[in-house]
């Protein structure tokens, strides 16, 4: 029998659970835990410079690896600083375990120094939360936290740990629990076979089918199965922003991603479809536009692991509760040996899609000519070329995020890492850190803008300490581009607080941390700058690239319209 203090149990549990790295920031209530981490060398602790960055870094790692990201913060402000990152992970169903120090049990409720009811504060944005009430519970509670975070529909789990629970003098028996059971929690895996048969029958009869798949396919590790199913059937496929890469985007059957700034052909195909097969997607408002005008002629098959996602905003005709991988594999076995009934109509359907592709060709942006300001879109395309489309790409939020999603074509899942649901500015850079620490051999690119980057730029210091060689591509348009775009469209170009009058000299800022910065102002400077920046995978390089500040993101769905109501440029709408 092994007797350990609560703090040592935490360090030991993380090792036994296979956690290699945690992200955090010390403080009074977490000091026993930090001392335990100091006395071991299995788990690496990454000291961030702000707790929000710890959550985003853990989140980035989780999105790239599929494993839970782990965060350790102290009570009060340490924990509240982590809230934005917890909410970001919650909205995108990312597995994360957040260990929060708390004031000692006897002080709880007394407004003690650095006390916050973090379980209360985070309640709406966690999958579940625990408070430790006795040190001996620690191994089981932590196991439950990891189990809940990573299974079913994944999500963040908060564990609140009062300081006395980790006191070095109180020792209890430690056994690593290999398994835990939670009587009220039995996430489904297999879908209902009868429903899956119904769905497959509809698929084989469909004349204008579209697959519409989301983050559930990526987190469910079902990309290969999905690709197999889609290619067997020969149907077009569009993914959500969160689902990018689940099906190779360079394949002819891929329509790109859909929604507000999704591809023209994806939105047109959705609107005209007679069958939509939604898998691991949640019909959110940035996808559907006006739900009352959504896909008027389509029957809807909806596969999701979370029953509450089904028929939440759009009524499903064939609801299937199940894990994406298991349901897709069952669909494959039912499709085997059967031909789609409407091969001819499917050919017509592809003709319509080819027509839509031709219609938007060359309309969405015009590349710059020598001597002109660079277009953000062409910068993303150039980064795609120099990284051969194989980099991990993280983004912040705004125009650059949409351009990165539109013009970096992903062949693999888990490579496009973006805050889709919450839309958290400041996410990209720390997320890139988390990815790079987990995948040191790979290129990790963070597309950002001046607004977003300045929200988390203190993490340059973390990168210096831990030698994190990410590439930061700042698409510098000297304004909050997406806000400005909306103001151009809806507020007669009254740019209320959407421009930045006092930007720093980014190159000097980066150099102050001892890193390389390259400023690109012209068309001609771009290619050599990228060559230089990506020469060494492990060198942090900041590219400050001045782009055309007047550029808008297109297509853009017209508010309150249907899927097909889009602006294609500043002058053209459907």
């Amino acid at each position, binding site marked *: 029998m092994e007797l350990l203090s609560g703090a040592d149990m935490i360090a030991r549990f993380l090792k036994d659970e296979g956690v290699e790295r945690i992200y955090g920031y010390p403080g009074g209530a977490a000091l026993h835990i930090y001392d335990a981490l100091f006395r071991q060398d299995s788990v690496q602790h990454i000291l961030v410079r702000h707790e929000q960055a710890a959550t985003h870094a853990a989140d980035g790692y989780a999105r790239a690896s599929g494993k839970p990201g782990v965060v350790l913060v102290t009570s009060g402000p340490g924990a509240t600083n982590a809230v934005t990152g917890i909410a970001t992970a919650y909205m995108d169903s990312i597995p994360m375990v957040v260990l929060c120090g708390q004031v000692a049990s006897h002080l709880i409720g007394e407004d003690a120094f650095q006390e916050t009811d973090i379980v209360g504060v985070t309640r*709406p944005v966690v999958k579940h939360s625990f408070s430790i009430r006795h040190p001996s519970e620690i191994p089981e509670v932590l196991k439950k936290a990891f189990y*809940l975070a990573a299974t079913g529909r994944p999500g963040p789990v908060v564990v609140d740990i009062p300081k006395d629970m980790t006191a070095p003098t109180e020792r209890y028996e430690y056994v690593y629990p290999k398994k835990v059971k939670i*009587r009220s929690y039995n996430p489904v895996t297999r879908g209902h076979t009868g429903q899956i048969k119904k769905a497959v029958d509809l698929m084989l009869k469909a004349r204008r089918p579209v697959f519409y798949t989301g983050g559930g396919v990526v987190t469910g590790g079902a990309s290969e199965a999905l690709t197999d199913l889609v290619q067997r059937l020969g149907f077009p496929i569009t993914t959500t922003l969160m689902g990018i890469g689940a099906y190779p985007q360079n394949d002819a059957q891929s329509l790109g991603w859909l929604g507000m700034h999704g591809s023209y052909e994806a939105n047109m195909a959705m609107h005209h479809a007679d069958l939509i097969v939604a898998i691991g997607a949640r019909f959110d408002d940035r996808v559907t536009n006006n739900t009352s005008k959504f896909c008027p002629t389509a029957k809807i098959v909806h596969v999701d692991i979370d029953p*509450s996602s089904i028929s939440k905003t759009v009524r499903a005709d064939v609801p299937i509760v199940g894990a994406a991988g298991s349901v897709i594999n069952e669909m494959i076995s039912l499709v085997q040996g059967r031909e789609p009934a409407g091969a001819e109509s499917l050919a017509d359907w592809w003709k319509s899609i080819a027509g839509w592709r031709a219609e938007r060709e060359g309309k969405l942006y015009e590349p710059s000519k020598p001597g002109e300001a660079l277009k953000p879109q062409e910068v993303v395309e150039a980064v795609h070329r120099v990284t051969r489309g194989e980099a991990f790409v993280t983004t912040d939020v705004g125009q650059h995020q949409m351009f990165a999603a539109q013009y970096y074509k992903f062949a693999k899942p888990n490579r496009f890492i973006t805050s889709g649901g919450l839309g958290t500015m400041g996410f990209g850079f720390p997320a890139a850190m988390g990815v790079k620490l987990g995948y040191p051999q790979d290129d990790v690119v963070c597309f950002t803008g001046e607004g977003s980057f300045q929200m988390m730029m203190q993490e340059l210091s973390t990168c210096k300490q831990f030698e994190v060689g990410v590439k930061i591509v700042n698409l510098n348009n000297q304004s909050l581009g997406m806000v400005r775009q909306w103001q151009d469209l809806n507020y007669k170009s009254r740019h209320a607080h959407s421009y930045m009058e006092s930007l720093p000299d980014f190159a000097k800022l980066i150099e102050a941390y001892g890193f390389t910065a390259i400023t690109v102002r012209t068309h001609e400077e771009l290619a050599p700058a990228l060559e230089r920046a990506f020469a060494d995978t492990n060198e942090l390089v900041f590219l400050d690239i001045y782009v055309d500040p007047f550029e808008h993101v297109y297509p853009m769905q017209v508010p309150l319209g249907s899927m097909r109501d889009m602006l294609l440029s500043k002058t053209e709408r459907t």
Partner: protein
Amino acid sequence: MRHIISILLENEPGALSRVVGLFSQRNFNIETLNVAPTEDPSLSRLTVTTVGDDRVIEQITKHLNKLIDVVKLVDLTEGNHIERELMLVKVKALGAARDEVKRTADIFRAQVVDVTPSVYTVQITGDGGKLDAFIQAMAPIGILEVARTGVSGIARGDKLLSL
């Protein structure tokens, strides 16, 4: 339509706040709420009455089921059920009104459970409609205070909400 949802909930600190938080967070509505431990000390039974169309009720039950602390639930209004509420009412009881309060209480099969020279405290059980009717009947005499438990309910016949 009004629904009565009964929930078996882990008897854990914070479990109730997760349920209540869910209703406000998702813009669902709570008409009454009633919660107490069951014969199994690890479980509480919580009964909530809510109003919404089928789509909303479906979302409410799905989201409740997602809460880790919710062990099991049933929408009692889907079948035959018994619903009861208990109410304690303090009524002004002076002079002729003393007899009137007693008579009205008898008509409603309510009991006077506490007496002072000027006040009767009346206990009444029944469904919400009966309790409302009693309040209406007593209002002209002078209601001083009302305490209602909110609805509790159980399915009729062999149907059980248990583990």
